[in-house]
């Protein structure tokens, strides 16, 4: 059976590069474009999607699905009513309780291997059987088990990076020593770029520099928007402020992915 839907892992070398904001808004953008999307919080060290998406009632956490104590249907929360279009938007959340985070950090290799099996099984249960177009994995930064599992299970890895020197060096290393080894298609999103660098003709120069630096496709450049910072991570721009430049850039990124994955 041919799988039409795709799995995207959003990863980064360092924390604070904007993975969660990018994942949540990219998922909402896909839904806005009429796609059936599910966003998963695989950042078990610091779960944040429940706060970003303001979800209080959860029947089953993603932790339980990976533990094998809960079916995926009970993990999925339908947020489609927040999307002003025919798209479908679901999420699967990581448990933010301290005990749950501690429990996840103490898992052994065998557990992680079974967890990878359960992540891979989502391709059948959600993409094939339930007709999802995209599953988006928001991950922990760096070399975390859950993140590498997500990368192995994904069709595309989006690396959120900044111009911070240690982030640039780390991202370059990960491209060669992680994504390449798993033969993963990898694209870059450069985030938090200062406006004077972003403005023309600086933007073209920056695009060339990034392509030369990483030798992988550049999906988009996102300037540092004060509005995004002011929102304190509490606004889904793709949905609540569709005319905002940030939402427009996400529209372009989502369309590019759609074309590349077709």
């Amino acid at each position: 059976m041919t799988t039409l839907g795709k799995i995207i892992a959003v990863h980064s070398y360092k924390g604070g590069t904007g993975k969660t904001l990018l994942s949540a808004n990219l998922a909402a953008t896909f839904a806005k474009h009429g796609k059936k999307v599910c966003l998963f919080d695989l950042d078990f060290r610091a779960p944040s999607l429940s706060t970003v998406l303001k979800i209080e009632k959860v029947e089953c956490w993603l932790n339980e699905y990976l533990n094998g104590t809960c079916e995926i249907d009970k993990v999925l929360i339908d947020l489609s009513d927040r999307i002003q279009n025919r798209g479908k938007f679901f999420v699967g959340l990581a448990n933010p309780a301290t005990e749950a985070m501690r429990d996840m950090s103490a898992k052994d290799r065998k557990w992680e291997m079974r967890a990878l099996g359960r992540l891979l099984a989502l391709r059948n249960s959600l993409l094939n059987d339930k007709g999802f177009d995209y599953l988006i994995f928001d991950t922990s930064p760096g070399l975390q088990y859950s993140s590498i599992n997500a990368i192995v299970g994904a069709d595309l890895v989006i690396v959120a990076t900044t111009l911070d020197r240690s982030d640039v060096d780390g991202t370059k290393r990960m491209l060669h020593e992680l994504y390449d080894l798993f033969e993963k298609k990898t694209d870059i999103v450069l985030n938090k770029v200062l406006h004077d660098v972003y403005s023309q003709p600086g933007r073209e120069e920056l695009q060339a520099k990034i392509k030369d630096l990483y030798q992988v496709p550049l999906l988009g450049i996102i300037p540092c928007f004060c509005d995004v910072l002011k929102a304190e991570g509490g606004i889904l721009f793709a949905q609540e402020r569709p005319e905002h430049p940030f939402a427009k850039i996400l529209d372009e990124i989502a369309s590019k992915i759609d074309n590349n994955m077709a």
Partner: protein
Amino acid sequence: MVSKQEVLGKRPLQILEKIRENLERLNEKMEVMIELQKHGRKDIQPLPETPLDVMTLLSMPDHLRKTAMTLCRLGRATAEEIAQQTHRARAVESAYLNQLVIMGHLKKERKGRKAYFYTEKESQG
């Protein structure tokens, strides 16, 4: 009642089949020994069971990772099936798979003349 002719006709075939099976097994063992020698390991004692998790995959040499990842995708496969995916020779994949068994990452099960390789996860159904 089996006729004398039938017995005479079947036996040589069975014997030939047995010889062929044994030769194939011998061939596999030689492939493993050659492979181990190439990588500077003389002992062929299986190592304790080590799950084939992502960190283990990351630390593997490139040639073994390719085989291991293909098997992870297929779940359970013969050397022939792996070779079709990796576009390398069946004998090469057979050697790598057997090396992964020795390293404790994979399990092997014979069904008739075919040898199936699988990960620990797969063995649990």
